[in-house]
């Protein structure tokens, strides 16, 4: 029983990071209308950012988390303005193929420059004992960081003027435009936010697991499962979806095998799209 609770909590910690990635994807999808298949690659870039800044200038990874947000935000905004904004008028699937190409481009470039050698950021090692349960430091701190970022995101979206503009564009971009909201600016900002979330998630991930160029692919699979679970454009849904996926993965890894756990995102996507395509939660 104690073991089970430990697995559950570990799942929640895992899920919190997945949720960050998922929320970024669903935000972009809902507001900009683009499915960013390269989203996982930005998680990878975030992880490498943490690694290189830690290795080269001994930057505290916790600082990297904070730094990565504006850095990746501007990266995302630039990419949107130069590349994806051009596809606003094109059929939806063009964006799909474009981001597909972008994904291939980014991780292969990373492989070329940084090789496939596994990297890691050994900053937080050891564990906390807690009422008879043991949790690793890195995972706990990561959980805390993920919660902090999520709270910041929700506060921003709910209370700030920009946040309201973003939500309006997400609900109906034409009406938002008529109301005087600069939807072009909203889209650029949202894309930047999505990438910023991915980058921050990447730094958080670097604290816990190995870093390698192709790591993005597992994150994008899970992100899709989360977005589909939570409902397109639904950020709270993505949060819950992320936690669910994390817990599921933790449970399956424990009671079946790690390999079987890799199938979870695929099965989730197929099941949800067949049984309840709008996602578990209404928009």
């Amino acid at each position, binding site marked *: 029983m104690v073991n089970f609770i430990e697995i559950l909590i570990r799942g929640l910690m895992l899920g919190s990071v997945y949720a960050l990635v998922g929320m970024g994807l669903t935000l972009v999808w809902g507001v900009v209308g683009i499915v960013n298949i390269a989203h996982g690659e930005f998680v990878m870039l975030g992880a490498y950012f943490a690694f290189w800044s830690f290795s080269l200038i001994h930057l505290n990874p916790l600082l990297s988390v904070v730094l990565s947000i504006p850095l990746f935000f501007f990266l995302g905004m630039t990419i949107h303005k130069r590349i994806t904004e051009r596809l606003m008028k094109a059929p939806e699937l063009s964006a799909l193929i474009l981001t597909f190409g972008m*994904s291939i481009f980014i991780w292969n470039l990373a492989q070329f420059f940084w090789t496939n050698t596994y990297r890691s950021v050994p900053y937080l090692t050891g564990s906390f004992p807690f009422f008879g349960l043991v949790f690793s430091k890195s995972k706990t701190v990561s959980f805390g960081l993920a919660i902090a970022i999520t709270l910041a995101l929700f506060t921003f979206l709910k209370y700030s003027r920009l946040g309201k503009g973003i939500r309006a564009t997400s609900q109906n971009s034409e009406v938002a435009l008529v109301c005087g909201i600069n939807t072009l600016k909203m889209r650029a900002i949202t894309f930047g936010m999505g990438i910023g979330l991915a980058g921050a998630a990447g730094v958080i991930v670097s604290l816990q697991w190995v870093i390698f160029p192709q790591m993005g692919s597992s994150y994008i699979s899970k992100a899709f499962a989360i977005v589909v679970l939570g409902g397109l454009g639904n950020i709270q849904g993505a949060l819950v979806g992320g936690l669910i996926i994390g817990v599921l993965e933790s449970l399956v890894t424990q009671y079946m095998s790690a390999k079987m756990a890799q199938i979870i995102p*695929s099965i989730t*996507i197929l099941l949800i799209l067949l049984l309840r395509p709008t996602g578990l939660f209404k928009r």
Partner: protein
Amino acid sequence: MAANEPNFQSLMTIRLEKRQTWLGITILMGFLISIPFFATDYWITLLVLIFIFTVYASGWNLFSGLTGYTNFGLAWFIGVSGYVSSLLIADYQFFWLLAWPIGAFFVSTISIAVGYILLRIKGVYFAISMVALTEGTRELFGTGFLEPITHGGTGVPFVAGIRLPTLYWSVLLLAFVTIIVCYKITSSKFGLRLIAIREDEQAAETLGIHTTRDKIIAFVLSAFIVGLAGAIHCTYQNYIDPTYAFNIQLTLTPIVMTLFGGVGTVFGPVIGATLFTFIHEILWAELSLLYMAIFGGILMALILFFPQGILGWMKEKGILPRIRKI
């Protein structure tokens, strides 16, 4: 400017005379058939790859190009058919001429069910679910659960007892038949219905087109064609394992080729496959490490600046007539 346009068109329009095209085809086929008699193994294998990817690209285009449902799960067709065919050859000593069609039939039969379930989902979601299917199947084939049949993740090296020239002629035949099939379907009423689905599915339904049935037929046909080529491809490589058989590159490459040549056209995939295999050879020799990155970059550039492909561009400019047949 307007005064110049008609002159340009009448000068540059290529007229397709029936007798000339038949003569051209016969000469080309004669040449290709005779290749194994005088060319080196290097050139034969290069052509084998060109033909295999022509079939992949044409098979993808047959479904996705005409109906507009971007199929990101081409590797699933290849992997499933490849596994069935290769396991039959390796573990049960089947003759390759039997194993290949059985692999293709297997995947196309399952595709009936897959298509029936997944083709109700439109656009982006369909693409994602095909990727999910491919990833899931790849993982599944690697698990211990299926290991007795699929040999798990370790891969199966095998030899099919087929000589290179025979393999070459088989693929040549397959590519030839595939192009004819694509030509016939695209020019037919069925092809027109598929294009209607792409242009506006709801309007097509209103007109009385049975969209689900037609989509499934195209999907299954695509599965069969690609499955056959996939089985041959695995036999050619004398090896199969989940990572190679369900590799995303097998999905990506035919799509890039078709985009380059012209989506929805008959000969677009052919042109794209031929040109890209040559480019691949050059890139692989010179810059093998950056090869995939360049491919991704090319894909992005194509979508942004040249989405209609070579044939699409030629049709827009009036160099080629804007008919479905090409």
